[in-house]
């Protein structure tokens, strides 16, 4: 009864949406449109397609043939190159990310001391991050670390005879690690911003409390930087898993010597565009997604034990 009494009044009070209001809404969607097209057409669509393709055999020429779990079975039980590339990639991730973060933090702390010409140094240190992913730098790297490269010529000046760093299976991966670490600019800038956020009076209080520089670093700087470290680590790990260009250039796309620089993405590329096994490459891609996803999930789960958020 109450409801029926109340309803007509409510219905009567409901105004028609004015035309201007509707146009406002349309404008919003129009502005969204480029992003929506990009997201559905270039990201979500291809991702779903690749997931479906990973259950097929597909050589780009004939139609895809349903393969069930065959691709995944082959990856897990037969394909030794998959395991080799995984080994190379994990080695690269586990070496380059911690080294890069440590180096970035070290440089950020030096720059944070407040020196003359800080902005110039900041730009110079950031430069490799802009150039580092490029083909040109990878070519340069090959020239530096080859048998007759710059490094060996410098070593020769002091009487040392260096190997061809990129041709030696034992050292090739490390040249790529060094290249990765050299691109420390972007985490460095973020660390620098993080360091600026730590109130100076905490250090003053700590120095009154008798804490040495070293203790201040481990007990104050590092704990308060954990959100920044966490962020940088996630971004850098994902980046490192996806690294491709340097290995492609240095090994001429082969991942050699003896698969020593066969990054996961490089192997995936070989399978897709060398052997035209698109279904298989899609399966490889989805396994990389799983690996990165698992790592990220573990990182987030562990964060509550070591990341300190002030607010």
């Amino acid at each position: 009864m109450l409801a029926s009494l109340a309803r007509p009044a409510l219905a009567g009070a409901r105004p028609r949406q004015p035309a201007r209001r509707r146009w406002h809404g349309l404008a919003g969607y129009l502005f969204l449109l480029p992003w929506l097209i990009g997201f559905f057409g270039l990201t979500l669509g291809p991702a779903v397609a690749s997931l479906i393709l990973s259950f097929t055999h597909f050589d780009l020429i004939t139609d895809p043939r349903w393969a069930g779990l065959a691709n995944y079975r082959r990856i897990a039980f037969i394909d030794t190159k998959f395991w080799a590339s995984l080994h190379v990639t994990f080695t690269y991730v586990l070496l380059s990310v911690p080294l890069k973060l440590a180096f970035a933090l070290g440089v950020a702390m030096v720059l944070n001391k407040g020196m003359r010409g800080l902005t110039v140094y900041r730009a110079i240190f950031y430069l490799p991050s802009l150039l580092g992913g490029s083909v040109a730098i990878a070519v340069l790297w090959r020239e530096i670390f080859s048998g007759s490269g710059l490094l060996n010529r410098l070593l020769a000046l002091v009487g040392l005879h260096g190997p061809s760093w990129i041709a030696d299976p034992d050292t090739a991966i490390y040249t790529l690690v060094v290249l990765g670490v050299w691109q420390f600019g972007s985490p460095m800038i973020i660390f620098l911003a993080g360091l600026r956020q730590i109130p100076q009076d905490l250090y003053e209080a700590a120095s009154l409390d008798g804490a040495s520089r070293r203790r201040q670093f481990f007990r104050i700087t590092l704990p308060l930087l954990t959100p920044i470290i966490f962020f940088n680590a996630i971004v850098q790990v994902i980046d490192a898993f996806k690294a491709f260009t340097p290995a492609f250039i240095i090994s001429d796309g082969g991942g050699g010597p003896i698969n020593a620089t066969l990054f996961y993405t490089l192997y995936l590329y070989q399978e897709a565009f060398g052997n035209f096994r698109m279904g298989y490459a899609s399966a490889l891609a989805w396994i990389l997604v799983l690996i990165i996803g698992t790592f990220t999930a573990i990182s987030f789960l562990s964060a509550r034990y070591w990341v300190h958020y002030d607010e």
Partner: protein
Amino acid sequence: MSGLALDHVFKRFGNLTVLRDVNLTVAPGEFVVFVGPSGCGKSTLLRMIAGLETISDGELQIGGARMNDVPAAQRGIAMVFQSYALYPHMNVYRNMAFALETARMPKAEIDARVRRAAAVLQLDHLLTRKPKELSGGQRQRVAIGRAIVRDPDIFLFDEPLSNLDAELRVQMRLEIAELHRRLGNTMIYVTHDQVEAMTLADKIVVLRAGQVEQIGSPLELYNTPANQFVAGFIGSPKMNMLRPSSTHFEDGELRLELGDLRLLLGRRGGAEAPAALGIRPEHLRVGSGTLKLGEISVQQVEHLGSASLVHGRLPDKQNLVVQLEGQQRIGIGDCLPVFLEPANCHLFREDGAALPRPAQPALEGTAYAH
């Protein structure tokens, strides 16, 4: 417990001198307050004592030993910061224990000290909380607790109450006074709030533009300010500063005229002509009194409940504030005769320095007679 001495201390940042020739002795157990307006150098002076700023010139002694080059941690001091500077990632216990752990004190001793300090400051139930989970007053207490556990010779407080609301400020002020009474340590306290200075201090150091204006007990500063600045800074509401309409010699006597007021200030040679006469609002009376200053027309009345502040204007357009007890029925535009006691008058030279007050300036009517 140690005293402290500053001997001709200077602080310079490049060409800028922010503290000039500071001399001060603090007796063991004394509560000294540095007070002054923003930018007067009071916090810098405190930080120099703490060892957070270098001393450009002069000497700092604590307990008789020169401390200029001794690291902050070895000066036997503890400091409470304006921002509290609590370590945000450590709980209350860890915050208080940090200095002791750094000094590698045995765990049992650390625990005993932290719990004792927590009990004194009523923090027992908060020991596992992080600073972000505490109220402003509780954070303040933790900051003080962090200082107490170290058992320092000297406590330094840098505007510790300025981030608290008015009610909490009064409460914490009482707690700090109580703490000083109980611990008996030497304490140096920086504030821009003259009420805090008056209520807490054994000795107040008034600073302005890097220089000490006056050092003395709160009542000394109130009763005999050394200059116009101190007179205006200490006491609330501010002291009235009035320009005499004339000061001249007549019959060998220095006479001051101001409104209806006629004062004899002494004989030629023994007296100097004042440029300003200061009188505190609470020392003025309305209706009757010893000497009549003049009639004011009331511009504004502030009712504080226990007192009324009457803002008025003298016939010569000088402003005057009168503080009257209780709740007065005074309207804007009323004319009030204002009276004063000669003994409550302060006289100042043109450069602001106080002149010696004649014990009993004579008054008109009883006519310049001694």
